């Protein structure tokens, strides 16, 4: 039987761009160039490797996001995923992590899955909670923050490098996995891959396709609110010296003045 893999990917504002907030204090996703979150490329890569090992597998990439989020799906398709689902609805604007996990869980169920693979965190929100939330909502094991992952005979195994220990984990499918940037470099799309991606199916679903009401998501449905966002004041220019043989000593003098020594 075919192994159905759903990879959740997020379209995020470019971290090297000028990220900021819109007037309603949501992340501005219009003014800043976006892209497939680099950390989700690792999820796509592991999905491709797992699919290559399996006899028969199908990879669906799934995103919840604005119109331009299609770019993220195209990139994942050009890396080798088979098809894509884009959940897009004006009422989704301002959805928080709790709401996003609700929408993703509904879409994952509708798509059908044996294995969900997510990134370790989105590069804009950096919460790192959506995979655990998906496992909670779907009622399946979470096997998260893996730096190594494999699937065999309906069992997913992986290594999670934690603060105090490195753990070997194991769970039966269906399950939700998330992978870190230590899991292995993501491949670049080949020219052939880019051409093929143009012909791969991208389905669009809105809230009604997922039996969700507008009040459950978006700014209105959010469980959290941002009351203020202020740009961090630029650091006051520090002292910069050129080392002419005494740089280490000068630095020590500074540290002593600050009472660090």
């Amino acid at each position, binding site marked *: 039987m075919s192994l159905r893999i759903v990879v959740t990917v997020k379209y995020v504002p470019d*971290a*090297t761009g000028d990220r*900021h907030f819109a007037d309603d204090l949501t992340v501005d996703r219009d003014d800043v160039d976006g892209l497939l979150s680099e950390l989700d490329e690792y999820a796509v890569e592991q999905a491709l490797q797992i699919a290559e090992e399996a006899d028969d597998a199908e990879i669906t990439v799934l995103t919840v996001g604005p119109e331009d989020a299609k770019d993220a799906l195209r990139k994942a398709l050009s890396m080798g995923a088979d098809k894509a689902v884009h959940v897009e609805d004006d009422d989704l604007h301002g959805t*928080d*992590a*709790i709401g996003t996990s609700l929408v993703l869980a509904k879409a994952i169920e509708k798509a059908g899955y044996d294995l969900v693979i997510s990134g*370790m965190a989105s*590069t804009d929100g*950096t*919460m*790192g*909670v959506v995979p*655990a*939330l998906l*496992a*909670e*909502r779907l009622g*399946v*094991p*979470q096997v*998260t*923050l893996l730096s190594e992952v494999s699937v065999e005979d309906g069992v997913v*195994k992986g290594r999670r*490098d*934690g*603060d*105090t*220990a*490195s*753990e*070997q984990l*194991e*769970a039966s499918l269906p*399950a939700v996995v998330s992978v870190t940037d230590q899991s292995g470099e993501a491949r670049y799309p080949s020219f052939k891959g880019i051409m093929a991606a143009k012909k791969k199916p991208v389905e669009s679903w809105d809230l009604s396709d997922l039996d969700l009401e507008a009040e459950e998501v978006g700014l209105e449905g*959010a*469980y*959290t609110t*941002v*009351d203020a*966002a202020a*740009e*961090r004041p630029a*650091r006051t220019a*520090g*002292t*910069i*010296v*050129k*080392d002419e043989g*005494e*740089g*280490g*000593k000068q*630095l020590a003098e*500074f*540290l*002593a003045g*600050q009472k*660090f*020594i």
Partner: protein
Amino acid sequence: MAEVLVYVDHVDGAVRKPTLELLTLARRIGEPVAVALGAGAENTAAALAEHGAVKVLTHDASEYADYLVVPKVDALQAAYEAVSPSAVLVPSSAEGKEIAARLAVRIGSGIITDAVDLEAGDEGPVATQSVFAASFTTKSRITKGTPVITVKPNSAAVEAAPADGAVEALNVTFSEKATGTKVTGRTPRESTGRPELTEAAIVVSGGRGVNGAENFAIIEALADSLGAAVGASRAAVDAGWYPHTNQVGQTGKSVSPQLYIASGISGAIQHRAGMQTSKTIVAINKDAEAPIFDLVDYGVVGDLFDVVPQLTEEVKARKG
């Protein structure tokens, strides 16, 4: 006064510093009730009472070590139901965030992660967060349910505030899902004898400029002279010169020490994401144009192989 649930991060009964910081913050918004799970849970009570816990709920079972995350969520939910707190605070570790998130969904609440400060507000606790690689500071609130908030290390001072801290056994019935993900092996991280990276008052980091695993001895020597933790950029980690557990930045640890010293690190946005909130920043880099110099309080343009050893000698000399 309303009770605030504080999830305790401990190693065999030794409470980790971020939990003591949480108690300081919890006291601003209510009376801290601590929840300690797993082996040695009861031994946490003295330290927790010393820092303001009015009660310590404890429970030990093999499930906490043998299965991932969910048993702890079950227990925290049991504590939530027993106490009906006005907020739940959890240390912002990778695991802490996962536990907090799952609890939030179960109790129909919102979640805020990685707060760097917390104060009481008219409509519930107000969390300060540092976002977009610390280029913005936000103030947020939870608007539905009981606020569940995870807080980063070094967000508050540890304060002594002796309280009762009476130990009470927590009643936990594990859910069917608790045993879904089995931990089949565990290799504890070897102790280096240096301070914990996220908790250290001083962090000394090396990057690609260190140019080799063996050269990290220079960074370690400086760190040891200052009693500091050692960090590394992703370039240094990817090159295999230093362990990933020491990586500072977006996909490594986020640190906020009193003093951060970067050597041979250019200061890419993803690195800054993990260190920009440090109080004092110092850099040594041979390229005067390196973006790290935009952040520094003091910078030395020079070769780290000259500057760092000289600094180490000078620190040792001054410390006698």
